[in-house]
């Protein structure tokens, strides 16, 4: 009976292994959905409504049908239909060239009756509809505030942002009779056929989805979306393959949306920094669907607290899961409010947060250690100064920190594994590599188990023809595929050792797979090279399937993580420069130190981007998104990210937990850590993200913006 577990001594797991798909990506050899070009392929284009709220009063498709090169036209809205957000799809069509398709869209006769719209979620009092949501009360907040030595009150807000995938959403769809193949830019290779089958009313078994490489998803690519379904229908109607990728303005406007969040927060603190009470109300919107409820207060479950959230529907396309849904919002609001409370006490936030760690539950010890390591790496004690004492010149320096958490248990996964008589090791999983290193991690598990190198094994993923794995969301992929692959590999190895044992005149239990050999553990001179060992299989490969969940404790859930930021703020221009950022992150057993650090780097960069630059600018006049390209939808560039340092927690207390996903945790804290650093530098809370010159100068000019302290002599901190 095989005991499923991670080895005590690891040869490859946890080392720095270059990602396997690096070379094909940097040479351009990797084929993304955008690169797929099928014989006879047509190009799709979409007529979109330019109004945020309107009724279609006339729709004439004839000019498009008659336009040169057009092979299929499908309206998804009809005359009389109400459109609820700008750039919603009205008509899909396919033509011989992209240009012909766009010209045909322009030829469509369409008229609208424009209706009243609402797109400014912050102004919830003007919203036509607001949906009060969850309300949580624990303990006795009033009694807690009565006990407080000081009470701070602050306002914090962050706007809707876009996922802004470099590869826009889209698909190439091709029918062979009644069977459909889609090349899709997706985070859910195994789940796409089922979703498409339901919409297209064909058996899921007749649909195959392929995605070898994806240019970003971040939570926005779990569904085929209407444009995927319609691309398949156009291809069916035209009898030819159809490629339909979103234009950049549509990608930004309708395919990427992290809900906004605004909050009023009151915090009561004792002189020693202990939080005695918390009260907050938040609201926000991701569009017509409103918004989820950010878990506020975040990380810290204070005994006396009250929180209420209101979801505000707007005339904007619906929200999509954005890395760690609801957490970056909750984190920014909570950690900013706590940092302001620490400043009101004149307390170093490092001590303040540490003081309150008892309210973080089972992660308390991990946070404490992470804060200690982070402070050391950052030189926090030497570099921190009380709020507002960041220098007298125009450029002020400041430090800030934040804590975060995420679950991340491994998703369902099946790994079909073959060990061929010629020594080949081949794993098939209907999983996908979002650029995070999934392929590499699977290879590491195989190589570790079989005593081979990562280059000696073959990993096949990105195809729904392979056994299913879950969508890559919620930091569940590495936990899932590592566990299914490990179980399959241990089963296959047991079978192989059984075949080889007689040849080494040993019992299978005495054998091990190490350094490209199968050998007797107690007497390494009795060994067979890997290929000679597998040759004993004769003509039939070993074929096994490993599952997750399954026997043995191979993964876990629940991580902490802390980040510290150092910034320089030009108080005259309001420009914030990120000088340095330190992340200390746990994720159970680190599979590949290099790709793990890379994930944290990516999270920090994306976080710096939303902290300083990103915002979907919604126009109150037209209800449209105004910044619809990379020029005006700003993101951090190379020069803007500063020096990034990552410390991964490893060893006892982490390794034995097994791998836990890492996609979400590192992107949660940057907004809060940077905002706190800016407050430390300037002496004033800039209450909004992104922290642009406009927000900084407005905050400096209007000192009443932000935080008020009650019960403190001398006014605002």
């Amino acid at each position, binding site marked *: 009976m095989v005991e499923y577990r991670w080895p005590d001594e690891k040869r490859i797991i946890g080392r720095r292994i270059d990602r396997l798909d690096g070379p094909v990506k940097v040479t351009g050899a990797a084929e993304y959905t955008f690169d797929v070009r099928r014989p006879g392929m047509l190009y799709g284009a979409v007529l979109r409504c330019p109004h945020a709220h309107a009724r279609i009063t006339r729709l004439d498709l004839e000019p498009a049908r008659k336009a040169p090169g057009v092979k299929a036209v499908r309206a998804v809205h009809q005359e009389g239909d109400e459109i609820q957000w700008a750039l919603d799809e009205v008509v899909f069509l396919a033509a011989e060239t992209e240009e012909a398709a766009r010209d045909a869209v322009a030829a469509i006769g369409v008229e609208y009756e424009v209706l009243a719209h609402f797109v400014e979620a912050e102004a919830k009092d003007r919203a036509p509809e607001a949906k009060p949501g969850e309300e949580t009360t624990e303990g006795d907040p009033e009694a807690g505030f009565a006990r407080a030595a000081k009470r701070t009150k602050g306002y914090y807000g962050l706007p809707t942002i876009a996922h802004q995938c470099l590869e826009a959403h889209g698909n190439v769809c091709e029918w062979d009779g009644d069977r459909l193949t889609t090349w899709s830019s997706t985070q859910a290779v195994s789940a796409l056929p089922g979703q498409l089958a339901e919409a297209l009313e064909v058996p899921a078994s007749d649909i195959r989805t392929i995605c070898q490489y994806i240019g970003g998803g971040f939570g926005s690519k779990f569904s085929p979306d209407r444009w995927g379904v319609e691309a398949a229908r156009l291809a069916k109607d035209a009898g030819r393959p159809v490629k339909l990728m979103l234009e950049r303005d549509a990608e930004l406007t309708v395919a990427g949306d992290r809900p906004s969040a605004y909050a009023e927060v009151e915090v009561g603190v004792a002189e020693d920094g202990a939080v005695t009470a918390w009260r907050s109300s938040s609201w926000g919107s991701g569009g017509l669907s409103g918004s989820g409820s950010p878990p506020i207060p975040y990380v810290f479950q204070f005994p006396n607290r009250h929180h209420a959230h209101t979801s505000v529907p707007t005339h904007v396309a619906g929200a999509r899961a954005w890395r760690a849904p609801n957490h970056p919002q909750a984190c920014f609001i909570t950690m900013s409010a706590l940092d302001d409370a620490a400043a009101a006490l004149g307390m170093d936030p490092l001590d303040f947060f540490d003081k309150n760690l008892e309210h973080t539950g089972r992660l308390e010890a991990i946070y404490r250690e992470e804060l200690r390591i982070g402070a050391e790496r950052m030189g926090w004690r030497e570099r921190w100064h009380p709020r507002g004492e960041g220098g007298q010149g125009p450029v002020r320096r400041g430090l800030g920190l934040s804590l975060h958490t995420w679950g991340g248990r491994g998703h369902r996964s099946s790994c079909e594994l073959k060990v061929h008589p010629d020594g080949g090791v081949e794993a098939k999983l209907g999983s996908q590599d979002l650029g995070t290193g999934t392929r590499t991690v699977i290879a590491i598990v195989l190589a570790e188990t079989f005593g081979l190198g990562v280059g000696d094994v073959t990993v096949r993923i990105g195809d729904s023809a392979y056994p299913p794995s879950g969508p890559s969301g919620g930091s569940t992929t590495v936990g899932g595929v590592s566990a299914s692959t490990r179980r399959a590999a241990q089963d296959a190895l047991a079978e192989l050792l059984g075949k080889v044992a007689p040849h080494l005149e040993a019992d299978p239990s005495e054998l091990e797979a190490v350094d490209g050999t199968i050998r007797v553990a107690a007497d390494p001179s009795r060994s067979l090279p890997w290929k000679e060992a597998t040759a004993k299989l004769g003509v039939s490969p070993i074929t096994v399937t490993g599952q997750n969940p399954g026997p043995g404790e191979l993964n876990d859930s629940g991580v902490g993580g802390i980040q510290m930021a150092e910034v320089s703020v030009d108080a005259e*221009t*309001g420009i914030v420069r990120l000088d340095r950022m330190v992340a200390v992150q746990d994720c159970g057993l680190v599979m590949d130190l290099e790709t793990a650090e890379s994930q944290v780097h990516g999270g920090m960069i994306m976080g710096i981007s939303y902290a300083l*630059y990103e915002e979907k*600018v919604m126009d109150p006049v037209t209800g449209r998104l105004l910044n*619809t390209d990379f020029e005006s939808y700003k993101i951090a560039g190379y020069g803007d990210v500063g020096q990034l340092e990552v410390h991964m927690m490893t060893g006892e207390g982490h390794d034995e937990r097994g791998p836990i996903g890492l996609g979400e945790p590192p992107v949660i804290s940057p907004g809060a850590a940077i905002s706190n650093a800016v407050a430390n530098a300037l002496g004033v809370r800039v209450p909004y993200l992104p922290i642009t*010159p*406009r927000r900084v100068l407005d905050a400096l*000019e209007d000192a009443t913006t932000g935080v008020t302290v009650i019960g403190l002599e001398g006014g605002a901190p």
Partner: protein
Amino acid sequence: MKAFEYASPTSLREAVELLAEAPERTELLAGGTDLLALMKDGVRAPDRVVSVKAVPELQGIEYGAEDGLRVGGAVTLTDFAGHPEVRERYPAAAWAAAHAAGPQIRNLGTVGGNLAQRPRCWYFRLGYGLLPRRNGESMVRAGDNRYHAILGNDGDALFVTPSTVVPILIALGGRATLAGPGGEREVALADFYRIPEAEGEREHDLGPGEIVTGLRLPPPSEGLRTASYEVRPGKSLDWSLATAAVALRMEGDTVSEATVVLGQVAPKPWRAEAAEGALAGERFTGETAGKAAEAAVEGAEPLSMNRYKVQLARVAVRRALERAAGEEG
């Protein structure tokens, strides 16, 4: 994109003729870094596109002690910024050109295109026009105007000038050379830009069928100190929120004459005459620079969301002055 006729003339005369036949339905193509995007987005839909890349009269950079610098309109920003005479004699102009947009844009974008480039106003880019109005009011005033004008904004034109190079060229006394159906002429860059009062009017002085053939800069005079300062939040590709260019003629530590020009604050490059007055005849000190900076934003009328730009313009002027004063020679 609407189908169009493409012409690639090989002489200036031919280019002018091709342009003059139907100027309102014709666009000039030089680097194409902006025009092609405007055409793909349907903001411009010309019947004819006239490329000037093969027009020899629009090429070349020459310097003469008498006439100063002459730059062909189709010279790229990269070639302009890297030219030895430009770097030596007009360092602030070389700096501004070397920092415009990003390397890809500078490698294709031209000096003529930079002088005549269209505003980045998002309402304009979305096809609502340069002076967009809806329900009897300005869309910019009622909408999101965080990047719009704080000066020269009493009419309907509320966009800002995009170029970060033009302000220093104006401060250096630059002139645009133009050619059109009526022949060739020259105009001071300071007079080349105008604020349109009605939709359809252009934001500069180009007549129907006229082409920017080049740029001229007078020889730098003795004791001239120049600098530009840009408030650019992103270190990678990002637009300046406010640019100030200054040229100071110094006699010892006294300013005998000053030119101060702002970009991205008004619908045309903004000559800050009050700031110039505050400097002329004064000894250059931090205090004078501060007074000039204050004077530069006198009369600024911020819109609902761009109060911060008044401060940015002020800081840009002061820092440009400090940079110029710190410059040797």
